[in-house]
């Protein structure tokens, strides 16, 4: 390109143009080495406000911990301590357990409040079998643990663990409501250790 000199139109300087072009390329090249900014970066703050990362086990166990609904299985006198525990003074609804289900299919927990006779044993086993997994059993009182005073009787099951698996044992004849609540807390600790990806 030829530009007439002396006309005051020294606008196009090839040297200047090439130089500026080279600078622009170099600048772009240098910027291309920088990490590409995250287009969703603005989301971070929202996510931090609404999303909590945790383990699946922890979430499931937390949910199950506070909705262990007991099934009706109260063959004898420990039932009155359980009723007292369920009523307003001791109040097991603090643990999400205020609904004591008449249907085993809606229950997770069997609190075996009372002496069990062999005649009744198949029916308790049937109630346990009807409960949906996962399910737990608390053996409440001396009779629930070992048959208690009646252990050597001809018609008393010496402990519920002879017919169904038991998770927590609460001694006492009968145990006070505080003891039952303590046993429920122990069961919560046991549930919290559970993993959904393995048995138990």
């Amino acid at each position: 390109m030829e530009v007439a000199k002396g006309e005051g139109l020294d606008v196009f300087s090839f040297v200047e143009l090439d130089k500026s072009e080279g600078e622009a390329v170099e600048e772009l090249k240098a910027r291309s080495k920088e990490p590409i900014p995250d287009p969703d970066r603005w989301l971070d703050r929202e996510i931090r406000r609404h999303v909590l990362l945790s383990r699946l086990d922890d979430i499931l166990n937390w949910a199950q911990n506070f909705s262990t609904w007991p099934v009706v299985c109260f063959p004898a006198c420990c039932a009155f301590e359980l009723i007292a525990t369920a009523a307003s003074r001791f109040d097991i609804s603090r643990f999400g357990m205020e609904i004591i289900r008449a249907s085993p299919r809606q229950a997770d927990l069997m609190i075996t409040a009372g002496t069990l006779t062999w005649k009744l044993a198949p029916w308790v086993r049937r109630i346990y079998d009807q409960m949906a997994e996962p399910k737990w059993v608390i053996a409440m009182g001396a009779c629930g643990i070992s048959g208690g005073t009646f252990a050597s009787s001809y018609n008393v099951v010496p402990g519920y663990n002879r017919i169904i698996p038991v998770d927590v044992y609460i001694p006492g004849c009968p145990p006070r409501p505080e003891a039952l609540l303590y046993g429920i807390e122990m069961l919560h600790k046991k549930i919290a250790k559970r993993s959904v990806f393995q048995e138990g």
Partner: protein
Amino acid sequence: MTTTLSGREVSSKLGKEFLGSVVESTENSILVKSESLLPVASFLKTAPEFAFDYLTFVTAVDYNDYFEVVYHLTSLEHNCSLVLKTRCYERENPVLPSVVGLWRGADFQEREVYDLFGIKFEGHPNLKRIVLWEGFKGYPLRKDYIQW
């Protein structure tokens, strides 16, 4: 309050047809022969001066030599009560007449006595086990019952 009738007084008021049926009458109870249990019980229920229309309970006692079955009767009309007893000396196959025909309330309690003592009640409409399960060996409330 319900008056407890003296067995002696009651047995003295039983008619002549019951001569020889009463074995023993004490201040508290009246003991009759097992074969005359039903006539005496029927009389005590129907006679207007007694009118024992309500059977409080039936139970049995093992005295090793014999079984004694005890009937506690109550008259709601006269507000009085009486203990009627009978004995069964047979141990292998004890049989007594059933009073279900007179008092329907004896139904379950005679079944319980049958279940735990092995005493059969003749004339019971549905004599089968009530508190133990089918296949249970022995009679647990007998004195000679050994569990193991």
